[in-house]
């Protein structure tokens, strides 16, 4: 990757960059914005930026620091990994967030396109992702193709310079707000994996219909998406026909890394009120200052230990990656452990709060507790999407442990 040589030049280049980042943040991130992070709205719903938020977003997009390590030629920040860490540290100090940080384009599609896209496709699609101008959604799962994704049926028929696409996708995150969709489609019904092609579909095309799915948590972040005779130019095919499975799997790796191991999700686990403090508040303590419900206390200890061991494992994975020994075996467990910790935390919150932890809406509940109820339910998806825990265990058994296929 082409890093910026003029930044690497000084004797202590990282400290020079730190000064640069600090100055730039001082000039562009107003202290008033602190605590007003609305970046998740990029994922969870339509944008509703204040003028100040919009200005901050534009500044980050123009600078390319929304994707600090992406190449400058496509609008990225062109920073080294070390510089990107410095930037993150400096942003954390002033409470600045990455307005594009959680988007599908940044997390999943962009990295994949940088690897597999043509020069024209990169020039066309990467800059709007960097600046957060367009939203992407993922057209992978179908009603009959969940864990067994490669059994997907949505068909793209060759019609000369374009394809005619027919079929249905489901679990399309943010489909109702998306401008574009990266989709896996079938171009050959006689092969399973080799019959799959990676297409970019404009969501405003005639024949695209989107229907939000209501979840048990009450929210509707996903959609069913129906495609009827949708025209997709061949220029919007990434890679050759029949190579979509390889590209699509690579994208899933980016997804998995962001779900399980992302630095942000680990730090989120440490954020917020510790369960022990909450338990003391709700349950009280015994004569020795211990949470009065001994069994619950033990569960909280185990949970806290699980978090620490997870964080240490995350560090180990990062060290292994840094020392160029490639992804370690530990990587494979991250998604399952991350999911278990997240779900366990939600269940423990209910056990601590009792009935007050089961509020749905209306009077009589803490706002935090109401959020946690929804989060408890929505969080059950973490062990289902992006490769279920069962699929992860299959992968660990087969790829890491070398156990045979059971068929």
């Amino acid at each position, binding site marked *: 990757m082409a890093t910026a040589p003029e930044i690497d030049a000084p004797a202590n280049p990282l400290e020079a960059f730190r000064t640069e980042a600090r100055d730039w943040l001082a000039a562009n991130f107003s202290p008033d914005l602190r605590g007003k992070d609305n970046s998740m709205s990029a994922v969870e719903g339509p944008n509703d930026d204040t003028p100040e938020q919009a200005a901050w977003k534009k500044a980050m997009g123009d600078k390319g620091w929304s994707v600090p390590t992406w190449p400058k030629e496509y609008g990225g920040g062109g920073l080294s990994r070390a510089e990107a860490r410095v930037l993150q540290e400096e942003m954390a100090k002033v409470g600045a967030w990455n307005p594009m940080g959680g988007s599908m384009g940044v997390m999943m599609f962009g990295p994949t396109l940088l690897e597999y896209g043509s020069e024209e496709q990169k020039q066309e699609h990467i800059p709007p992702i960097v600046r957060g101008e367009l939203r992407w959604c993922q057209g992978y*799962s179908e009603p*009959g193709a*969940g*864990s*067994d994704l490669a*059994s997907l049926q949505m068909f793209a028929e060759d019609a000369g310079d374009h394809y005619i696409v027919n079929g249905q996708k*489901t*679990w399309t995150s943010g489909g109702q707000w998306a401008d574009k969709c990266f989709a896996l489609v079938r171009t050959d019904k006689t092969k399973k994996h080799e019959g799959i092609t990676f297409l970019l579909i404009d969501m405003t095309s005639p024949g695209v219909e989107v229907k939000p*799915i*209501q*979840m*048990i948590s*009450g929210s509707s972040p996903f959609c069913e998406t129906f495609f009827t005779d949708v025209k997709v130019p061949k220029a919007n095919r990434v890679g050759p026909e029949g190579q979509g499975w390889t590209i699509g799997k690579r994208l899933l790796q980016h997804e998995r890394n962001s779900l399980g191991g992302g630095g942000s999700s680990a730090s989120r686990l440490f954020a917020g009120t510790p369960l022990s403090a909450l338990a003391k508040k*709700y*349950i009280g303590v015994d004569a020795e200052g211990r949470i009065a*419900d*001994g*069994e*619950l206390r033990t569960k909280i200890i185990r949970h806290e230990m699980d978090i620490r061991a997870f964080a240490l494992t995350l560090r180990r994975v990062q060290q292994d990656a840094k020392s160029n020994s490639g992804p370690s075996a530990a990587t494979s467990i991250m998604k399952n452990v991350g999911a278990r910790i997240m779900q366990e935390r939600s*269940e423990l919150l*209910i*056990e601590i*709060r*009792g*009935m*007050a*932890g*089961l*509020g*749905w*809406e*209306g*009077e*009589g*509940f803490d706002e935090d507790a109401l959020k946690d*109820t929804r989060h408890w*339910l929505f969080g*059950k*998806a973490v*062990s*289902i*999407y992006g490769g*279920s*825990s*069962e699929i992860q*265990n299959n992968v660990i058994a087969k790829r890491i442990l070398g156990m045979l296929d*059971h*068929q």
Partner: protein
Amino acid sequence: MAVLTEEQTMLRDMAREWADNESPVTAFRAMRDGAPAEMFASDAWQAQAEMGWAGILVPEAHGGVEMGFVSLGAVLEQLGRTLTATPLAATSAATAAIVLGGSEAQKAAWLPRIASGEVIATLVIDEGPRFAPDKIAASVSGGKLSGTKEFVAEGDSAGLFVVAAADGLYLVAGDDAGVSRATRHLADSRSHAQVTFDGAAAEKLAEGGADLLTQVTDRAAAATCAEMLGMAEAAFAQTNDYLKTRVQFGQLLSSFQALQHRMAKMFTELELMRSAVEGAFEAIDAGRPDVPQAVSLAKAIAGDTLHLVSREMIQLHGGIGMTDEHDAGFYIKRSRVLETMWGNASWHRERFARLGGY
């Protein structure tokens, strides 16, 4: 199944058939979507009263059938299977209190109206979000009860409250001027209310001895276990059915051995749960001295098992189980409420050990 008399078997089979045909989960969904003020299915409650279920614990002299907890449990289990939303469990808990602790006059005044379904009754103990029968601040002075109670089941519609005050249990009529209610919307879409008693006229339940409160809350917990047993059974059965229809990787999910073993282990826990829950009913009906142990055993195991089954129901259904369109969400939401009511698994394990002297 425990050994049932012929009469009990008939009752159970009738309840099962009724629940399957007249009160399937779609009825619960309709109630939730309609969100009536009383937060239960009033037509279903009407039907239950007509079938005499509101009088299962009521002595014949007061208009009931006096069939006991094994019978009540058999019915509540069937209702739990389909998530039937009626005040039968709450009313039964309050009924048990009156039967155990009421004077003849109190029984005569209330039990016939309960047995007929005219009055919905409920047991009112907690003043916080966790079960704590040893922390009652509500007090009675000059026949007037004052205190605020939290998360009262069927509190939106109850016509009679059996209320714990610091010195015992009291009857308070729902229409007393000193009673006010505030709905609490919980995840299970059932009725729970904050009920404030501000100098409400209260009549003490003076019979039943010093441990009346414990006897009554144990019966309330046992009734809850019955509902939990039915829910766990249904959640498990639906999951098993789903695995037999869903194909992934060219195979039915039910053919994957990893899932088979998870299901087998869950089935094992379910069988133990049934034994423990039915054991509690039998202990109550037999008037055994170890009712507290039997109930704590049942509630602890029921809590853990339903917790497991309701989680696995979603996980094994995959994405479809995460949607509101599917019933799995209803089961997990109601599960946590029942796990919490009348003492969660930790609470009951703690009591079990203390009763055992360790």
